[in-house]
């Protein structure tokens, strides 16, 4: 069983604290993603679990075994796990076969059995007939498959993946994220995946932990939970293009931007005067006329499959997109400075003083 228990784990480098008292449980057989901006400590956390780093405080257990605390440290070679790195880390002086077979060789697996298992694993990651190649003769995507096979061949119950797709081009990345998910399901292993790319996290995870730049976990939940019910503005803006529409309270009335149009949504709970209504571009319905907030298209950009609109409503701005075919079919090809009417399906309310925009989240 590969349940991971982290208890009050801290890691500091000199004066700088990267992780501070972090507690987390990753269940057996789930695909768990650590998602956060660069420098948030997610990679450090993965390296602590792998054993490449030692916690300054707290304890880490994998299954029944205590692998690290203040006085003990099991080195990575004795933790029974597979690790895949961003840089592929396949050994350039060994063939694909030897790369994949190395863990078995160290485990002194008999030669025949070793060959069988290596070929089996190579087939599993779709590298058939490339086993004699050297890594330099493979593409980036193939090299990453070798790294995957090498991590899987010892049948570990836990796989750690550190941004394994970020060196690949967009098409390959899209293809491989689904393959990794397939493998995880098929082999029923625990996967801990580290990334800064929210799309990958949404696509492959059973649960996601969103981390902020201070190394704190802001929210843990299923992809739907995280995307549809973000606990705060940081999580909301980190998960995709975010619209933050300024709304001001005057007495008991809520107005959009600087103008006189009422905000047509359920009211927020709280006394603040300055609010922000947050929503996704996909929550926006834009029309030429009818009911809704009146604004104008400040900037219309044709991006091929979609039209991208920047809309201004009384000094407040929002972004939305319309599929090009829908826009053409429904007379929604706006030009710059044309008037429009905007409806929003649902909003999240945030107090304007506590807002953390995407820019800050990434900084």
């Amino acid at each position, binding site marked *: 069983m590969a349940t991971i228990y982290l208890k009050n784990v801290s890691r500091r480098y000199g004066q700088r604290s990267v992780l501070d008292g972090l507690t987390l449980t990753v269940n057996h057989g789930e695909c768990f993603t650590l998602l956060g901006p660069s420098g948030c400590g997610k990679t450090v956390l993965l390296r602590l679990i*792998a*054993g*490449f780093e*030692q916690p300054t405080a707290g304890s880490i257990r*994998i*299954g*029944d*075994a*205590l*692998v690290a605390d203040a*006085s*003990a*440290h*099991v*080195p*990575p*070679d*004795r*933790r*029974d*796990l*597979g*690790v895949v*790195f*961003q*840089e592929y*880390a*396949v*050994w*350039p*002086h060994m063939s694909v076969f030897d790369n994949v077979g*190395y*863990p078995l060789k*160290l*485990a002194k697996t008999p030669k025949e059995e070793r060959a069988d298992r290596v070929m089996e694993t190579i087939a599993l990651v779709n590298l058939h007939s490339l086993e004699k190649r050297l890594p*330099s003769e493979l593409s980036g995507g193939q090299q990453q498959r070798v*790294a995957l096979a*090498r*991590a899987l061949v*010892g049948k570990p119950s836990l796989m*750690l993946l550190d941004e394994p797709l970020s060196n690949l081009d967009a098409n390959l990345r899209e293809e491989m994220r689904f393959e990794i998910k397939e493998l995880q399901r098929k082999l029923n292993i625990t996967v801990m995946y580290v990334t800064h790319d929210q799309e990958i996290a949404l696509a492959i995870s059973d649960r996601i932990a969103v981390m902020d730049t201070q190394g704190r976990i802001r929210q843990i939940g299923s992809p739907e939970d995280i995307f549809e019910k973000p606990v705060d503005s940081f999580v909301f803006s980190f998960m995709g293009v975010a619209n933050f529409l300024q709304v001001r309270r005057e007495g008991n009335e809520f107005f959009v931007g600087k103008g006189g149009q009422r905000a047509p949504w359920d009211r927020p709970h709280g006394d603040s005067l300055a609010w922000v209504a947050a929503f996704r571009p996909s929550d926006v319905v834009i029309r030429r006329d009818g009911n809704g907030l009146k604004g104008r298209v400040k900037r219309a950009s044709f991006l091929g499959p979609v039209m991208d609109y920047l809309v201004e409503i009384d000094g407040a701005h929002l972004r939305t997109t319309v599929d090009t075919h829908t826009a053409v079919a429904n007379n929604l090809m706006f030009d710059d400075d044309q008037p429009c009417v905007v409806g929003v399906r649902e909003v999240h309310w945030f107090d304007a003083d506590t807002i953390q925009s995407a820019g800050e989240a990434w900084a």
Partner: protein
Amino acid sequence: MSAPVRKKFFVGTAGIILFLSIAVLVVFVAFPVVLILFNAFWTKGAFNLVDVAAVLREPDTYQALLNSVFIAGGTTIGSTIIGTFFAWLVTRTDLPYKNFMKGMFLVPFMLPSFIGALAWKMLLSPRAGYINRLFMDYFGFDGPVFNIYSYYGIMAVEVMYLFPFVFIQVCGALERMDPTLEESARISGAGLFTITRRITIPLVLPSILSGALLIMLYSMAHFGTVAVLGIENGIFNIPTLIYERIHQSAGSFAAIRTGTVLATVLVVSAAFIIWLQGKVLGKGRYQIIAGKSFRPMELKLRGLRYPLLILCLAYIGFTIVLPTVVIFMVGGLKTYGLPFTMENLSLDNYKFILFDYKTTKDAIWNSVSLGLSAAVITMFAGVMISYVIVKMKVRGKGILEFLGMLPFSVPGSVIALGVILAWSGKFGVNLYNTVWIILVAYIARYMAFSLKANSAALEQVHDSLIEAARACGASMWQSLRDIVLPLVRPGMFAAFFLIFLPSLRELTVSIMLYAPTTRTIGVAIYTLNEDGETVMSAALAGIALVIIITGQTLITGLTGASVKAK
């Protein structure tokens, strides 16, 4: 899964490697240098600066200091101009046969400069030099055209052998430079000469300066050329004066003191130059590395194309071919001074020194065995030390990083002196007058080469390659054996040859440490020349050249093949 293992074990293995690394650097490099500083500043049990000043004020030492600075200054200026000019010529113009030229300009790197000095002595010594004689006998000149036994003679010869340091730096910078930096000047309306003057040269200035400082460093501490050409007219620089004092006074206290004070000056100026170079490179190097690669623009030389080609060929002929030919010709003469006619030339000298003459046979044997041993030992020590510096995260690494810098800033004559102080029995081990003392000095001298080659190779090995092995179940030792060592093998290979080849022609260190039976090739060539056995000296120099060039060709072939195999 196994039971938790105490942290101590993990630190322990790393600790052993760290300790060994520090021990190697301390014993071979730091200890001798410290002894020099100690001897220079510590007399009669007390710190003493007055005596140091007194030594420096002696006319001989003072003059040697001035000479070192003057010669190094002249050499640096000359080499920088020539190196930059040729680098620009082969990278930015349509000069014919550019690649061949580029290769030829690097040849002086592998030729020992003191053999060159010897050749130039044969060509341009005031009375006996062949060129001077030619002009006096056939063109009716009253005196020599050029006296090589002069400051300018010494500088000229040093420039010939040192300019590649600037050449290679500037070539590298010009080749790596993003061509769009120049193209954007062109689209702005600037012609090629304006671009060269206002964009290209300023951008590669840090590289030029860094190459120049390197030459300064080498020239200050350079022994061979000044020894061969200067002593005749009483021109000494710091290294030759150290040698002169130690050699003549057979280890007297006063001589050692002068030596250690001069050595201290060398160490301090070397450290200063290296610091300065670090500053120039660190702060001044612009981010000019290319993104997309296009061929850079070439300046059309038009009418100047062939005159400049002839200039290059003449330069190569005059500075590389001519001295080499002279060495081989003189080596074939019955007696020095005879004209080069068929009946005067034979292979007898070569046969004699290879098969019959004990001094030269010993010297060749000594150099080869010393070179091999030093190369092997230094190669392995270098891998270990570089591994700690580049890859390991252990406490105490800072000390090692500092010690690792040391070999780069300690010139040969300083090492030789330090080794004498350390290994002459004062500390329980007496290696003086044995070949072991030369071996110890070689290890210290070439540690820098090994560290450079091996850390470059190790930096190519990404941490994740090693961590991947650990995650696969490899212990630290297994990951070293299966992953790290195979991957740095090319670096070790390079280190081996970087040490073996230069050690075959080493002079600066060996000359201070040799005993009658422990001459090296360099020492034998030098002493034969001193004793007036010019033809024997030339013949041995010729054989040394053959060995060096064969070795170099072999490596180029081997490394070329291994690059292709990858």
